[in-house]
C-alpha cells in the first residue's frame, strides 16, 4: 500500500486492474486504492509480470503492506508499487518515529501506536493512553484518527475524510515548519496582452489560462533557485529534487482541496501544461488521481483565480519546503516610470521553510518569477 501523502495511514484496495499473469510495463496502472483523497490509481514503476495478489479487493490495509508480488524483475521478486511508497520522503515505514519523537519529552507510547501515528502525522502528546502503565497504544491512536471521519461507502471523493487529512497535514506543518512569508506585486499587463493575442487566434478548446503562464514562470524560477524545490525530513534535513513537479492546488466544490503534481513543469510547453491542468482538474474532482500525482509534488502553487481575493499566504505541505500563493489579477493604479497608470496586477507570495532558506533568497526567487512574467513570449 503506497503512502500517498504525509497524512495517510491506510488505504482500501478497491480493485485490481491487472490480473496474475498479465504483463506489466513501467507506468501501467495496476490497481485502484481508496484513500482520504478519493480513489487513487496505483502505478507500477517497473516491468514484469503480475504474480500473486496478496490483498483482496475491499480490504483496508496499513501503508507499507505488500499488495502483490511482481515477478520477473531482474531475477528477483519485488513487491508491487514500492516506488510509490519510497519516492516521497514523507515519513515512510522505515523511519516511523521521526515526526513524532519530541526531543527531551519521553511520551509513553507503544511501537505500534508510534508507527500508526507517524504514518498519519498525528501528534502523540495530546493523547490519553489506555495501555499498560498508561501507555498510548494502537487502539488509542485509531480512536483519535477515526473520531473525525466516519467511513463512507460511496465511490470517489469523501469530503469529510479529505478534511481530516488536510487537518492532519496542515497541523503538522504549522507545528513543525518555521514559515516565513514574502509578498510582491507583479505587473501582469505584458502577460495578459500576450495571452489575449495568442488566444484570439485559437478556438476555445485550445485557449490558455493565465495559470499556465504563472506555473511555467514559477518552474523556470525554481530551476535557478533549487532551495525551494525539494523535501525536508527529520533527520537528514533538506534534499533538493532535480525534477520540478509542481503541486497545483485544486479546490473541490463543496469544500476540500488536493494538490496533484504536474510532472516536469519546466519542460512542458504551455499547450502541454494547459492540457495537463485540464486533465488534472477533471480527475481531481472525479476522485481519480494517480498515486504518483499525490506523492511527487516538490513544491505547491496555490492560485485563487479570478474569484479570489488579492493575496494568499499558504501553509507548506510537508515534506515540501515552499508554497507560492497567487492572488486575483486586478486593475490597480501603479507608478510606471514617473506616471501613474492603471494596470492588471497580481500579488505573488511565498511561504517558505526557514530551516532551508532565508528571506533574501526568497525575495530573489519571487523577483525571478516576476521577471519571467515580463517576458511571456519566452515561456
Amino acid at each position, binding site marked *: 500500500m503506497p503512502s500517498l501523502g504525509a497524512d495517510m495511514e491506510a488505504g482500501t484496495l478497491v480493485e485490481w486492474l491487472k490480473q496474475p499473469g498479465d504483463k506489466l510495463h513501467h507506468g501501467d496502472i495496476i490497481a485502484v486504492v481508496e484513500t482520504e483523497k478519493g480513489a487513487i490509481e496505483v502505478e507500477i514503476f517497473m516491468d514484469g509480470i503480475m504474480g500473486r495478489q496478496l490483498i483482496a479487493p475491499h480490504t483496508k490495509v496499513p501503508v507499507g503492506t505488500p499488495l502483490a508480488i511482481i515477478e520477473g524483475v531482474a531475477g528477483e521478486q519485488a513487491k508491487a508499487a514500492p516506488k510509490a511508497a519510497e519516492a516521497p520522503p514523507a515519513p515512510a515505514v522505515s523511519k*516511523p518515529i521521526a515526526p513524532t519523537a519530541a526531543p527531551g519529552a519521553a511520551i509513553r507510547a*507503544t*511501537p*505500534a501506536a*508510534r508507527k500508526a501515528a507517524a504514518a498519519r502525522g498525528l501528534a502523540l502528546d495530546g493523547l490519553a493512553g489506555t*495501555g499498560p*502503565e498508561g*501507555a498510548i497504544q494502537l487502539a488509542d491512536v485509531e480512536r483519535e484518527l477515526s473520531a473525525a471521519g466516519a467511513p463512507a461507502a460511496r465511490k470517489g471523493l469523501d469530503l469529510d475524510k479529505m478534511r481530516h487529512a488536510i487537518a492532519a497535514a496542515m497541523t503538522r506543518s504549522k507545528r513543525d515548519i518555521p514559515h516565513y512569508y514574502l509578498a510582491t506585486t507583479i505587473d501582469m499587463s505584458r502577460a495578459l496582452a500576450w495571452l489575449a493575442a495568442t488566444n484570439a487566434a485559437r478556438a476555445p478548446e485550445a485557449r490558455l489560462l493565465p495559470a499556465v503562464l504563472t506555473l511555467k514562470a514559477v518552474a523556470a524560477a525554481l530551476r535557478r533557485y533549487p532551495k525551494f524545490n525539494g523535501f525536508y525530513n527529520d533527520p537528514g534535513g533538506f534534499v533538493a529534487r532535480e525534477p520540478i513537479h509542481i503541486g497545483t492546488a485544486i479546490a473541490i466544490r463543496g469544500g476540500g482541496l488536493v494538490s496533484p503534481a504536474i510532472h516536469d513543469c519546466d519542460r512542458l510547453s504551455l499547450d502541454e501544461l494547459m492540457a495537463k491542468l485540464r486533465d488534472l482538474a477533471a480527475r481531481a474532482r472525479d476522485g481519480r488521481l494517480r498515486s504518483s500525482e499525490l506523492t511527487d509534488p516538490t513544491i505547491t502553487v496555490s492560485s485563487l483565480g479570478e474569484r479570489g481575493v488579492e493575496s494568499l499566504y499558504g501553509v507548506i505541505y510537508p515534506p515540501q519546503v515552499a508554497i507560492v500563493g497567487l492572488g486575483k489579477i486586478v486593475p490597480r493604479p501603479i507608478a510606471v516610470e514617473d506616471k501613474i497608470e492603471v494596470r492588471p496586477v497580481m500579488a505573488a507570495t511565498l511561504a517558505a521553510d526557514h530551516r532551508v532558506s532565508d528571506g533574501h533568497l526568497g525575495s530573489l526567487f519571487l523577483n525571478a518569477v516576476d521577471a519571467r512574467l515580463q517576458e511571456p513570449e519566452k515561456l
Partner: protein
Amino acid sequence: MSAAAEMVAEVTYRDACRMALRDALVRDTRVFLMGEDVGHYGGCYAVSKGLLEEFGPERIRDTPLSESGFTGIGIGAAMNGMRPIVEIMTVNFALLALDQIVNNAATIRHMSGGQFGVPLVIRMATGAGRQLAAQHSHSLEGWFAHVPGLKVLAPATIEDARGMLWTAIEDPDPVLIFEHVMLYNSGGPLAAGAGAVPIDKAAIRRAGQNVSLITYGGSLPKALKAAEELAGQGIEAEVVDLRTLRPLDDETICASVAKTRRAVIVDEGWCSGSLAAEISARIMEKVFWSLDAPVARVCSAEVPIPYPEHLEQAALPQVPAIVAAAKGVVG
C-alpha cells in the same frame, strides 16, 4: 478421508506414544527401542508396556543404567544403518549423555562433511508436577534447543504424540522428543487413521485477537485454560503451540504477534537464558513495530523444583499467573 480415519477412539497421551512406537516397529525392521526398563518393566512411564512380548528382546532392549553408553550405542547403530529409538528416563538423566548428544550426534554430519549422518531419535520425559523432586523434575529442553545439529520436538497433544515419532524417524539427523510427565495421563479422541504429522510448523490451538499466549508441551493445557478464563473477561487470547523447539517457527509466532500486538510466553524452564528469552528476542527483532506492550514471560521460579506439593506447584507456571500476565499486557 477414509472410513477408518473417521472412527475415533478415546486414548491417553501414553497410549498415543505407545501406538507411535508400535507403528514404527511394524513399519521398519531397522527400528528398535533401547533404554532403562523399557522391556520387562514396560517403561518408567509404562509407555512401552507389552512391546517386549510383541517384538522380542532383539528390538526392545533393556540397558544398564548408563546413559552415555547406550546413547552412544544408539548413535553407532544409526550411523550403521539402523533407526534406533533411545529412551532416556528423564531429561535430568540425559545430562549424563550430553557428551554423546552434543559432541557426537549433533556434530558428525558437519564434521564428516556430510559423509555420515545420525538418524537417531531420543525420547525423554521432562517437567515437574509429580513430586519427584529437583533431580527428576527440571525442564531442560531449552538447553538442547540451543544446539545446532539437533531437532527438538515437544508434542503437547494426542495427535502429535501419535504422529511426531514417525516423521522424526524419517529425518536423516538426530531428533529429540520431549514428553511432559503431566501429559501422559491426559486423554482425548484420536482418529483411528491418525498418522505422521509435520515437525516444522507451530500450531494455533485457539484463535484470538488481543494477546498471543506462546507455549509448548506441558504448559499448553494451562495456556488453553487461561485463554478460556480470559475470554470470560472479554480478552480473546490466541494460543500458539510451538510443537518444535528447534528450529523455531518464526513465521507463525511473528504472524500471531503482529496480529494481536501482545505476547505472553509460557515456558516451564527457568526465565534466565530460556527458550522464552529466545522467543522474546526474536519478537523484538522481527515485529517490534507491531507491539502494543512489552513481551511478558511466565516461567518457573528460579529455584530447583521443590519436593513438597504446595511448593512445587508454587514454583511452576500456573493459570492465574498466565491470566494476570495477559491482562497486564492488554492494559
